[in-house]
């Protein structure tokens, strides 16, 4: 069992496509929380296989998209200091802040390094003792344990030249804030598979219990997503919402306890600002007292220009599922992947980027209208 090949056989999706296609009730709005799901849905052309009554909305699950300009500006400012090495995941390179991006800063001479693993930042700190290495920690609960592990290593190696800029966020309370806001009408949630591999399924129980909305913790193969959609349609029809783990091969109800413990040691939870949504309590990870010495914001002084937001950018509404990309007046004209105004367009899993690239009706090269969905 390779866990991949067998599940990619095209035949496996047919029963679900047929089941969903047979739905004839009132419109159902299903939100996929996770950006990776947004991209998977588009890459496999799933929307076109669904009946019109089943509508998909994208949620705020793109950690790149929800990082506010202020944090990006700080990362750029830190990178620009001579003697600093700013280390980042590739995802953040092209994202525009108030005035620039990390890619632009690199072009202007800042020492910015892209890594696949945060472990490489530890290596860089060891090899460049005369420089200050700052790791830009973006990502949700999937990634936070990996940066936490690096900080533990930095501490035990007494690395004096290693610092951390945290942009980590937590997902479940953000979903709660979104549902409570009443801004968006959601009948079912496709919950992030890999975040849940870490946190388990329990954190979503309040959604079914308090909001009456079904949740399926979903993997990323087309068959996983279609199975989840089928289950959510059924839950809605039967009026019995619950939390179900669809991605059983990777997610246990209790999640990865070791990873959770590591996060609790290295990070403390507070509120954080989500671009377009605002401050949400209980969603930000900053360094705990024990690890506070690594905090770049605290210990590395940089001057920031006034933070500003791009005029006309609808990323906030798109992240909340209130608007779809074609409904943003900048979409495809002033805002494209080459000249992104907001992060939803430039992030590899940003809703606007996915829509722009992949959607047959409004995607690149089409003369399509600005209708929702493909």
């Amino acid at each position, binding site marked *: 069992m390779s866990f991949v090949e067998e599940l990619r056989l*095209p035949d496996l*999706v047919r029963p679900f496509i047929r089941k969903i296609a047979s739905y004839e009730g009132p419109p159902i709005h299903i939100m996929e929380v996770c*950006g*990776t799901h947004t991209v998977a849905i*588009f*890459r*496999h*052309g*799933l*929307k*076109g*296989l669904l009946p019109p009554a089943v509508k998909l909305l994208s949620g705020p699950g*793109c*950690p*790149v998209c929800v990082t506010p300009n202020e944090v990006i500006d700080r990362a750029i400012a830190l990178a620009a200091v001579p003697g600093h090495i700013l280390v980042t*995941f*590739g*995802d953040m390179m*092209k994202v*525009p*802040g*108030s005035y*620039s*991006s990390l*890619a*632009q800063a690199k*072009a*202007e001479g800042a020492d910015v390094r*892209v*890594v*696949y*693993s945060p*472990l*490489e930042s530890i290596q860089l700190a060891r090899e460049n003792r005369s420089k200050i290495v700052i790791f830009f920690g973006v*990502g949700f609960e*999937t990634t936070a344990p990996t940066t936490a592990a690096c900080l533990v290593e930095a501490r035990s190696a007494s690395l004096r030249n290693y610092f951390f800029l945290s942009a980590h966020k937590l997902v479940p309370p953000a979903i709660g804030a979104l549902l409570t806001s009443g801004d968006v009408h959601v009948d079912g949630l496709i919950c992030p598979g890999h975040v849940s591999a870490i946190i388990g399924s329990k954190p979503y129980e309040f959604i079914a219990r308090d909001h009456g909305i079904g949740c399926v913790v979903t993997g990323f193969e*087309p*068959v996983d997503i279609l199975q989840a959609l089928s289950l959510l349609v059924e839950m809605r029809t039967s009026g019995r919402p619950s939390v179900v783990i669809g991605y059983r091969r990777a997610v246990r109800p209790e999640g990865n306890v070791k990873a959770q413990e590591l996060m609790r040691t290295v990070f403390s939870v507070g509120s954080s600002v989500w671009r377009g949504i605002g401050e949400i309590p209980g969603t930000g990870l900053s360094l705990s007292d024990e690890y506070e010495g690594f905090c770049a914001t605290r210990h590395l002084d940089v001057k920031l220009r006034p933070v*500003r937001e*791009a005029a006309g950018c609808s990323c906030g509404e798109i992240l909340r599922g209130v608007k779809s990309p074609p409904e943003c007046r900048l979409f495809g004209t*002033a805002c494209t*992947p*080459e*000249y*992104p*105004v907001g992060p939803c367009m430039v*992030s*590899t*899993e940003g809703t606007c980027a996915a829509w*722009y*690239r*992949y*959607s*047959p009706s409004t*995607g*690149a*090269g*089409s*003369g399509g209208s600005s209708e929702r969905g*493909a």
Partner: protein
Amino acid sequence: MSVSHSRVLLAHGSGGKLASELLSTIFLPPFANPILKTMDDSAVCPFMDEVSTSGGKEPLEIRVAFTTDSYVVKPLFFPGGDIGRLAVCGTVNDLSMVGANPRYLSAAFIVEEGLPTSCLRRVVGSMKKAAREAGVSIVTGDTKVVERGSVDGLFINTAGIGLVPPGRKVSGALVQEGDSVILSGPVANHGISVLLERERMGFVGTVQSDVAPLNHLVSRMFETCPNLRALRDPTRGGVATSLVEISRQSGVTIRIFEEKIPIDPDVAGACEILGYDPLYVANEGKLLAFVPRAEAPLVVEAMRSIEQGRGAVVIGEVTGGPDARVLMTTRIGGTRVVDMLSGGQFPRIC
């Protein structure tokens, strides 16, 4: 805010949209001429001559294909090849893509002070070998040495010329509805090979680059199918970018089938781990061919008889449709748009 491109970014060299923008805003307008505008892999330059026949003198048009490319690959040596092999094959292939028979190359070297001469010898030896494989001669060249730090070890520029046989017309602008799209073999080997060699990123083991001369393959293809419409080697920007370029040149919709696209399992694995889309990764020993549908099976069979075409397969077709775009039927029967590469790809966690 809109990030202004007041400076040249690395993304401008990645062969995607930003690269073509650089071209269209900075280079093409001042140099404007009809040959340049065709934007195929090589320029086809007509020379008029006269030939004596029994009826007197008749005009004769000789078409010289002419191309140039600079090679700045890092690292200089990678599994399956090196900068020298790349420099010869890249130019040979660009000539082949317009239907020319490559004959003569130039090679100009910009060497960083301090480069070991053994390294230079090794590169030159590799170029000799590649030239012999392709049946071309390197007939002129130049060498410059620059101060330490000015270039990364070694940069090479090659230019090449060859004749396009009379009557042969091959161009990305000639593709028609009903044509079949053929890919000569598995994708993404070169880009992944070089990336893994340059930045380990935790990978163990190597992937072989596919860098190879394609002129013998192309000759065989023309023997079988003189009506070949278009050829393109999907280098920087990958198969996707080449297909989009052609769809725009000819103003057609191209539909490809995800399940038909060949990829080696280790290359697929590396792409999955890094989050790279193999359709956008560079190839240096592959070609895309557009042929009339009826002739596709024969062409594929002919290709498979040549080393470089062993993995040849039909991956799609040119359909009707008012828009010049590329659509892909996904493995599960959905449809998605295939766009050009925007800037470079980066390894990602999301």
